[in-house]
């Protein structure tokens, strides 16, 4: 039965490839071995050096991704681990983008060393975060997705700063399998064979490790080197694929899941079946696109299609997690110290916000350098700056308030608005509007963006309505929606023209382009959110204690959760619509609030709200002045200011 499924998949992949191959040449005219390039027709070369290596590379790269995913899942005991969810692929992407722009000579010897360094750094970061939480699956996945988001934000900003549309980057980001010779397949084969042998050798120790640390120690196994070696192998495989064909997401997630559902019981079986499944998945996806192109359709990047499969796959995997994952390891932090006088802290934060707002309103940088605004310019400049400052601060407050809600709701310190999928949906709405409507005006764009965000929110709410909602799963559902959105976005960017540039600009975020009415509306929403947070204080106090406590206290759990999710989603959507999908403020501000000792619900939420505004004020000022007259991406600045802090906090809090 299982073999039948695999065989059917193989036949289908071969059939799809053959459709493309036959549209090039009938079998009678195929080149005979040995091939001599000089004597072959162009059609024969197309087949022998284009389609054939492409088919082989799809198999090999799929196998490498499947093996990488299976290894990661085995060593982390996490069915959600794969090069996409752990940030490995995004790390490689960032490294390659940076090298393409700043040091193109580094890529002369191929992309691999650069990709490997980036993938290793990103995975190392995720592992460092995960290690503090005993590699709890959901936390590791969220950490990986966040590192991935950060890497993509940086890559976007770099592409923008280049001010010039780099075709090679766009193609690579889309995961392009087109080949013109056999070098890609040769490299991949040379890497895959030793990797398979190494995986087979690692299977037994990994299985012993899965018995638990005590059992492993009893058998004389040293865990740290084993984990390190396994992860290194997986990262190297993933970097190899990234270097050869670019971003191909979720094959590493799908392949082990397929292997499991086909009845691979032992670890060795899974490690050997996952590459087969991965090879089939990628071949099928690529074959589908090849056949589509042969039938006269558009040629789309393969990575976009696998990304489309990835979102639904994550959702499908969620209900199946329970049996395998020890849920209690997902618990959040223990309470840290508490501030003695939270009111004074809040007042201080409010005063700091106001002071910073006034300072950045009058101070700044002009053609003549740094300084305060001369009085004669006030009439022109004050409205411009006040609008931008108000929009930035309100957006920060909205995102931070939304993050505070989510962290209370899920009791997970990694919860953030980016993780809800609303940002992804809104980005997609914006992109579709830009592509579909030529010369779309601001109102049109706002409508499209909010429609996208609302759709993502509706999907999430639909998921949340289900009775067995666990907060961790909610976050993963949000991630799945986000992954889906970014896959479609990747396809749009890879297959379209200069309009992609407009989208890229918006993705980086900007406060200075907001209209006064928009800024005022945003401020009103931020105040409304603050009122709602204070009103919901009792719920937010009880929710982190867990579902049982809530039910015992007579809380209508389902309704409360749904209401809070909608509130967080709306706040995120509104902020995203006006200043772009700014990263990390919604994650950082609540962490800072907690580190300041604001523990109870009302001070925590209000503190997060104020800190969010403060962070965005700083980011907006930096973005406006750092390279005058060029407005830098607001999202980049917010990320740069906050991320190092965030990582320090995350590392410190749990080690105590």
């Amino acid at each position, binding site marked *: 039965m299982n073999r039948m499924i695999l065989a059917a998949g193989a036949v289908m992949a071969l059939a799809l490839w053959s459709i493309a191959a036959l549209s090039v040449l009938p079998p009678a005219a195929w080149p005979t071995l040995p091939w001599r*390039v000089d004597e072959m027709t*162009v*059609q024969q*070369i*197309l087949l*022998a*050096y*284009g389609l054939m290596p492409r088919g082989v590379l799809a198999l090999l790269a799929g196998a490498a991704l499947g093996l990488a995913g299976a290894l990661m899942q085995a060593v982390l005991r996490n069915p959600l681990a794969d090069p996409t969810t752990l940030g490995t692929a995004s790390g490689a992407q960032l490294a390659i983008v940076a090298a*393409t722009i700043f040091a*193109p*000579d580094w*890529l*002369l010897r*191929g*992309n691999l060393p650069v990709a490997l360094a980036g993938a290793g750094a990103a995975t190392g970061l995720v592992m460092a975060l995960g290690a503090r939480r005993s590699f709890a699956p959901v936390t590791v996945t969220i950490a990986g997705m966040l590192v991935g988001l950060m890497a993509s934000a940086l890559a976007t900003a770099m592409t923008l700063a280049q*001010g*010039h549309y*780099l*075709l*090679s980057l*766009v*193609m*690579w980001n889309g995961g*392009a399998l*087109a*080949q*013109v*010779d056999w*070098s890609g397949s040769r490299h991949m084969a040379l890497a895959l064979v030793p990797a398979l042998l190494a995986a087979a050798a690692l299977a037994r120790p990994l299985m012993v490790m899965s018995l638990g640390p005590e059992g492993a120690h009893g058998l004389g196994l040293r865990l740290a080197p084993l984990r390190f070696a396994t992860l290194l192998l997986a990262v190297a495989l993933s970097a190899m694929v990234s270097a050869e064909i670019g971003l191909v997401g979720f094959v590493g997630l799908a392949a082990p899941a397929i292997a499991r559902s086909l009845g691979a019981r032992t670890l060795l079986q899974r490690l050997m079946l996952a590459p087969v499944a991965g090879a089939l998945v990628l071949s099928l996806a690529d074959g589908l696109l090849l056949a589509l192109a042969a039938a006269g359709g558009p*040629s789309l990047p393969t990575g976009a299609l696998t990304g489309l499969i990835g979102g639904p796959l994550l959702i499908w995997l969620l209900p199946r997690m329970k049996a395998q994952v020890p849920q209690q390891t997902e618990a959040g932090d223990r309470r840290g110290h508490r501030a003695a006088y939270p009111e004074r802290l809040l007042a201080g934060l409010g005063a700091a916000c106001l002071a910073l707002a006034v300072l950045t309103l009058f101070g*700044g940088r*002009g053609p003549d350098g740094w300084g305060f605004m001369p009085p*004669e*310019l006030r*009439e*022109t*400049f004050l409205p*411009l*700056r006040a609008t931008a400052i108000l929009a930035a601060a309100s957006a920060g407050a909205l995102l931070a308030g939304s993050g505070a809600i989510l962290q209370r709701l899920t009791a997970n310190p990694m919860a953030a608005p980016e993780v809800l999928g609303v940002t992804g949906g809104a980005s997609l709405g914006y992109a579709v509007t830009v592509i579909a409507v*030529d*010369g*779309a*005006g601001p109102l049109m*764009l706002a409508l499209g963006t909010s429609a996208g965000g609302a759709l993502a929110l509706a999907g999430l709410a639909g998921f949340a309505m289900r009775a067995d909602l666990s907060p961790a799963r909610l976050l993963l559902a949000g991630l799945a929606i986000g992954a889906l959105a970014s896959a479609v976005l990747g396809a749009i960017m*890879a*297959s*379209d*023209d*200069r309009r992609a*540039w*407009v989208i890229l*600009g918006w993705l980086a975020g*900007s406060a*200075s*382009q907001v*209209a006064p009415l928009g800024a005022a509306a945003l401020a009103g929403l931020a105040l409304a959110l603050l009122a709602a947070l204070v009103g919901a204080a009792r719920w937010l106090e009880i929710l982190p204690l867990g579902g049982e406590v809530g039910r015992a206290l007579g809380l209508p759990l389902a309704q409360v959760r749904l209401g809070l999710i909608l509130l967080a989603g709306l706040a995120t959507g509104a902020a995203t619509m006006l200043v772009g999908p700014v990263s990390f403020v919604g994650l950082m501000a609540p962490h800072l609030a907690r580190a300041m000792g604001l523990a109870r619900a009302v001070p925590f939420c209000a503190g997060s709200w104020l800190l969010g505004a403060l962070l965005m004020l700083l980011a907006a000022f930096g973005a406006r002045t750092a390279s*005058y*007259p*060029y*407005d830098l991406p607001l999202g980049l600045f917010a990320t740069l200011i906050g991320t190092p802090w965030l990582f320090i906090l995350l590392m410190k809090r749990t080690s105590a």
Partner: protein
Amino acid sequence: MVGACGFSRRAFLAAACAVAGRALPAFAADGLRLAAVDWAMAETAMALGHPPAALAELIGFRDAAVEPPPQGTIDLGLRGAPNLEALSLVAPDLILSSSYYSAIQPRLERIAPVFTRALYVADEPAFPKVMALLAELAQRLGDPAAGPRAQAAAQAEFATLAGRAAGFADRACLLFELGDSRHIRVFGTDSLFSGALEAMGLRNAWTARTSFAFAAPVPLEKLAEYPEARLVIVGRMPPQAERGLGSAALWNSLPPVKAGRVHRLPELRPFAGIPSALRFAHELVAALEGRA
């Protein structure tokens, strides 16, 4: 006091130019004070003899400029997100924009009147629009004679180039940019360069699939469908692509490559005005003659 500020800046610029011992830029002498967000508009205004006082992404514009912008031109920041403070300081009489930047138009309009056109729209040939823009912009600038003058000059130049290119009209040209060694971006019949080709009496080989718009990324193997064409690579080649192409069996087997019908042009601006179209035409003819 916007007006006062603009005046003082102008005076300051004049003084700066005087100190530098150069002639005053044309914009300070007469006519409207222009600020350009769109590069096609900026090039067109320069071709009319009315260079903008301020330009978005000035650093990038200088990089591949047909004619360098005058000394003292002010940088406005990013094209998609121009610095509104810098723009207010310039105190322009007219802002030149295009449909690409319609999202920011209301904010520009609060500073000065905006002159905008939809120049580059998929499936609509850009060349005639850009040519007509010369007259339309001249009209708007209150210098209606400059439009037909610039148009006639451009047409005369294209006619001269057509004479030199006549010997190469036997084969169609396939214009493309190289992304990496496996992907290209082809200029369709709606592109500016395709219009320039036609103005020189040459043909664009890429007539099918204009739905791909003017610059769709396509796999390199598509080139095999054009064995008779001349291959014209526009722009700088990334180093990895250069290395990859040299060893690619597919590339080396293409009939135009075997026959040496590959021509390389320097970095050019595909979404620009008539000056860029003319520069493309000059570079192409020079490249064709170099091979002949």
